């Protein structure tokens, strides 16, 4: 989502973007926050010389190892954000959207965050599921819709947890333990985080933990330009929340307990460190603020303020950034650092269970999922092991999905359908021939009645004859059924053909009419009469064969 303006505004994109409402609104908040952080510290000029390879290799790590530095872009502006978001068309879970008549797409709850979606892309006969960041844990969003993923021909699996060895429950416990430990020792806790997402769960967890850890008097600060909107938005998206939280709305109570924390003044939120915050700031305290990369935003100030004291702690909860890289510019750092990445997305164990449940015919996934992480080559539990093996892909690779489109749905207009005369060829199966005009538009195919030629006015203009549609001849009847050998031989005999030599073949029989030097090949899907220069005999034989077959 955060990269959307780069796609819509810089690539000549002219299409439509589909998104759920929380995705749009919270995405807007996050982008707004980013732009705000960036615009607070405008740069008078931008340096590009360092991007020269010769200079770059002289730079310290990690700059010297950065790749494709020339593709790096400046941050977008609010105007670009608005422009990008104007291209978004809102969709709801399970809503079906037609794309050019060729496929239908439909978002499903992925259980990861408010409005996060997996997508079903299906035609009449094929179904592809696209599984992105999903979670089976009981957190605040609506639970993941698994059943709709069943019967997929292909399931494209992405967005698994970045921290397969870090169990979110354990990390949450670790977060609380370290937080309590620091506060008890008189230190402050800094939590660099995004202003939406896991923070809701963190606050909920702390709501329960505060009393049991005797932290009732410790202030919790949430500082972000969009802090207020984020906290309030989360309370109004009731339909996108898990069942428990939805039911609270009808009590009526706010779905998230952070409302109570705010009411009781345990949680206070501010747009920035300036203004009210500076007058109400009290230590020891817990501060949630961005940006989790520690490169910009209010978090930078707190790093400067608290970094020198070993009684303070910084707790990383966002899995998107390496905490060591994030801390690199602040070294040497006295403050304690705790890494508790909380990534609720599916892990390998959960994926294995999910796939067992939904049973797609084929799974397509990034190559990394098919082998253990390079640093932990013995961890055979950190990879996908499926039968049939998943189809791996790499960045920018183009894949042919492992299925072929064999059928297309064609509609018949009612009046045409009315004219059909079905005949039953097997119990329950009837067949009819149809002569019609196939009309194709927007990937929709319709059979329409053949227009009747208008009666030719006897006296008028011969030149128009050329423009008339060709006269459609009645099609030859279609034959079906099988020719029973014994009965056919008896019939031949009745018609005076006695010298018949029968030869059994793989597909049926060959009847050799020795006297007439004629062959009749009786096969499962065809009958051939090979008869040279004896048209009457061929016609007789044809008629005899036709006696045994049904005509449609």
């Amino acid at each position, binding site marked *: 989502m955060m990269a959307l303006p780069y796609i819509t505004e810089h690539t000549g994109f002219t299409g439509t973007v589909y998104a759920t409402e929380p995705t749009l609104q919270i995405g807007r908040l996050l982008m707004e926050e980013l732009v705000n952080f960036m615009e607070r510290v405008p740069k008078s000029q931008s340096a590009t010389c360092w991007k020269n390879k010769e200079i770059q290799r002289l730079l310290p790590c990690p700059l010297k190892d950065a790749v494709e530095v020339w593709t790096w872009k400046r941050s977008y502006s609010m105007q670009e954000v608005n422009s990008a978001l104007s291209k978004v068309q809102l969709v709801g879970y399970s809503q079906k959207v037609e794309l050019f008549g060729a496929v239908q797409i439909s978002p499903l709850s992925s259980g990861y965050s408010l409005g996060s979606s997996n997508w079903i892309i299906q035609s009449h006969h094929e179904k592809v599921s696209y599984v992105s960041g999903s979670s089976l844990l009981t957190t605040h969003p609506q639970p993941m819709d698994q059943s709709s993923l069943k019967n997929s021909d292909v399931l494209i699996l992405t967005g698994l947890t970045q921290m397969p060895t870090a169990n979110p429950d*354990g990390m949450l*416990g670790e977060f*609380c333990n370290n937080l309590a*430990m620091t506060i008890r020792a008189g230190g402050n806790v800094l939590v660099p985080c995004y202003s939406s997402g896991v923070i809701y769960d963190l606050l909920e967890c702390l709501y329960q933990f505060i009393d049991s*850890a*005797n932290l009732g008097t410790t202030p919790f600060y949430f500082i972000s330009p969009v802090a207020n909107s984020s906290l309030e938005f989360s309370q109004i998206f009731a339909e996108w929340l898990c069942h428990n939280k939805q039911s609270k709305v009808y009590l009526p109570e706010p779905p998230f307990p952070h409302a109570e924390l705010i009411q009781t003044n345990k949680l206070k939120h501010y747009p920035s460190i300036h203004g009210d915050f500076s007058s109400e700031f009290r230590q020891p305290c817990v501060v949630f603020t961005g940006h989790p990369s520690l490169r910009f935003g209010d978090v930078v100030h707190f790093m400067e303020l608290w970094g020198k004291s070993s009684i303070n702690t910084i707790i990383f909860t966002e899995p998107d950034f390496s905490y060591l890289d994030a801390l690199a510019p602040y070294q040497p750092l006295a403050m304690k650092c705790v890494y508790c990445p909380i990534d609720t997305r599916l892990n390998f164990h959960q994926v294995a269970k999910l796939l067992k449940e939904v049973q797609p015919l084929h799974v397509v996934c990034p190559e990394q999922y098919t082998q253990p992480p390079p640093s932990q080559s*013995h*961890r*055979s539990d950190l990879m996908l092991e499926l039968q049939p093996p998943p189809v791996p892909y790499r960045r920018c690779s183009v894949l042919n999905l492992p299925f072929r489109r064999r059928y297309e749905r064609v509609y018949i207009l009612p009046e045409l359908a009315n004219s059909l005369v079905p005949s039953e060829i097997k119990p329950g199966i009837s067949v009819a021939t149809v002569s019609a005009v196939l009309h194709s538009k927007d990937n929709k195919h319709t059979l329409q009645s053949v227009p009747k030629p208008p009666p030719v006015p006897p006296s008028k203009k011969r030149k128009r004859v050329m423009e008339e549609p060709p006269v459609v001849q009645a099609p030859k009847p279609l034959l079906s059924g099988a020719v029973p050998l014994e009965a056919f031989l008896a019939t031949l005999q009745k018609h005076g053909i006695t010298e018949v030599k029968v030869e059994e073949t793989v597909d049926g029989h060959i009847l050799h009419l020795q006297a007439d030097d004629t062959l009749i090949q009786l096969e499962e899907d065809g009958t051939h009469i090979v008869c040279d220069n004896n048209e009457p005999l061929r016609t007789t034989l044809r008629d005899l064969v036709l006696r045994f077959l049904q005509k449609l």
Partner: protein
Amino acid sequence: MGSRKVVRPELFPARWTCRGNRGIQKNIWGCKGVIRHSPDIMPVCEVLLDSGSSLPDDTSLEKLLDWFSGLIEPGEGGALLEAHPCLLEFISAVVHKPSSDPSVISFVLKVCGLVAAAEDAFKMLQAHSILDLAFNHQHWHRAGLWEDPCVRIGWIQGLRKMLQHLEALRFFVQADLIPELLQLQTDSSLFVVSAANQLLAHILLFFQPAFPTRRNGVHMEHDDMMSHARITETDLPEVHTETSKCYAAVVVTILEYINESLVTKDNSQLRQSRQILKVLVPLLAQAGPFLRDKLLQSVTDSLEELVTAGYSQLTLPLMDVILAAHSSLSPDDPDQRMGRLLSSMLNVNKPSDLIHAAAAVLHRGHQDTVHTARAVRILLLPLDIITGHTLLGTNTADEEHQCSMAEQLKSKTSCISLICVCLTNAPHVTLMPADILPCPPCSIVAAVVSLLSICSGCVSSSSSGHAEVFRNVIGSSKVQKCALEAVTRLSSSPGVKDELTEVFTVLIRYLSNPDSDRTIIHKSYQALVKWTIVCKDLSSIKDQLRQDLTDVVKKRVCDMRWEVRDSTVEFLGQLAGVLKSPEMERDTSEALLDSCCCLTLLREALRDPESYVRASAIAALGQTLAHSWQQGAALTQEQTDVVNQLLEILSQDTEGFARRAVMQYFLAWFSSCASHTSPPSSSRSSLLMSSLSSVLSLGTADLDWEVKVHSLELAELLLDKAFSGCPDYRKPSERPCASLHPYAVVSDQTYAVHRHTPGVECDLSDVLNNLVKQGVVSALLSGLVDCDRPVGLKACQLLISLRETVGPPSKDEVNATPTTAAVAKVTCEVPSCGWGKEIRRILGMKTCDEDEEADLTADECGDMRKQGKGEGGRSVSVSVCEMLRSLGLDARLDILSQSSDHVHNSPLSLLQDIVMSSATHTQTNTQPGQEVIVDCY
């Protein structure tokens, strides 16, 4: 739950309804051999005969049977019939009246067997033709009652009770009961099958010819009875020829049956085979040479067949039988078939069967070196494969099993099961003699530690273990728990101390792992404590490791889960206890954790919102400070603060656990100071003594009865200390009449003070005065009238001790010495409300303002007492000695010593229940509108 008893005089002779005559009741109900005094059972017999189905509950008949069993001395069944002639009539009537309720018939069959266990009674029953009919199953078949399993159970158990003498055996054989008994071995009811199995084993073992004692450590249940019933080998030809024939016939029939039933034709019969195998184990273990040889001759072929068939479900029972047979034979037995069978079982190709067979060899304490060594190798195989530690050397003999085991370990379910069996047995394995072990015990510890690392996902790339198996054990909490238990037990294995650092490292890693669940953390702590106890030298533990442990403990004491916080503070206490125990005196620099840090953490835990954690923290503080109490070290401000915090908890905490812990803390402290030889620092001693008065008053006013009992225990310690120089003083526990009631509260810790050296005279009046001032006497008096029986009992015992020590024989005694006169003048304030009011009532005192006081609520009284107003305003001074004499303590002790349900549980009550239930039933039948009212509590 129970029903309220109303004694109905018309049902029983008058003497049984007299509640006041408890002494007689106790004598009658409490002792055997007084059948003639037991109550009349006629009404009960009548009720059972008439309306067996209206019993108060389904355990009544069981209780009645238990009572009968308790009345009869072995071999004296006739006495019961003599004392209760109606019993014979009752039995006869029920046996002849097949329309009785099946449960009554079952009961009668059991009583019949119980009585007939004595030869004289047996003959009496025979003379009345009761036995023939009672144990004639056809009789019950005809009546359509045999279908009811309780009748079949009654039949079996009746026979089981009766078959205690040769006459009974003869009857059993002549009545041709054995085919039916064998039939019941495959009954549809599991209970019937089990009882029938036991009867079969009983018959074979009980009547077997006597043999020289060689019991293989098996407890013989019926030693006394057997001595006169068993057919001796010399008896066989002469005295008991007929009986020996009976026995031989029984043996032949039973063995034939066993042999036929042992080998299954298909899987559906496995249950039967398993039952027979279960019977064979005690038979082989307890059989004499004659029976054992017969058994082995009979079943060995079948056992071989079963071993070859390789039914997994039969592995364990089959191993039990083979091991029992093998160990019953002498090692130089020429026929080595059992040994070969054992070898076959230890060579099967199914890894799960193989490992269970090996575990059975170890569990049964098998002595054969070759097989034990083989079993050990099998048990270590999964650990060897998974961890890559070469526990088994390079012996190629195991290669085949290694492949099949490795294959099996790839399946998650069987992998966890196999490794758990391996881990459970690993500590036992390390205790084996060195010549049996394929590797030293420390290698096994190293392998278990390595497995623990694998389980937590720490797999080094250099690990030579079986990577395909890792995925099955990584994160498996079952394997982790098993491995932690194994590590804990492995601490006591020989030669494993070198692994201390590795063990500590992995345990600390488990403690700090965010994914460790509460049980795993608890087990890790337990393992750490155990290894700390065992390894006296902790110098090998590096500073970094100590720091890691400190960090993790600091973190876990803040954990979200109260169980983890509880385990952590418990660990801190245990660790302090271990490191400071006298036998493990250590340099403080060796301490794993800094004691200041521990104390701070524990004090913080006193404010924990969970009462269990607070209680554990208090206990841990006690363990941590115990050392300084014993050393008599100077008091620190921190310790004073701790005492204040504890007093605050005692007065304000809403949960009983924490308050109980505080009481135990002071008990331990006082006990420690009083018993230790080194002089306590004066400040410490005065803090303790000044606290005790508050502790006593708060403790006795507590709502929790355990807290109150602990206060009385503290009072007892104060009494012990005060009277340590007094030769007349005897603790309640030393008093001859002091019998501990089964439900009496017993502290899990014994607190005691050192008795003073004799020869030092004590001034009794001063001592008593001090006790009054300390609030000990008030505590005892309030305890005496407490509504909780254990509290009253304890207080009563202590008051009696006090009376015996200080009280003169009588106040009118003319020869009172100056000492006794001074003692008699010591008074105690008895308040006018609360416990004081009750004491005054007992003493027969009436004050002018009593009516007024009646209006005071209990809460108001409590408040006044706490503020010291109540006593000051309206309390009266009463002579302590006078009070001790007038409180009727002996009678009170008598009452309090009986359990609160002694009436409810008496046989008289049982009989009344049965009779009254029938009466109510009849009434209910006649008056359908009336309901039975039962008090449930």
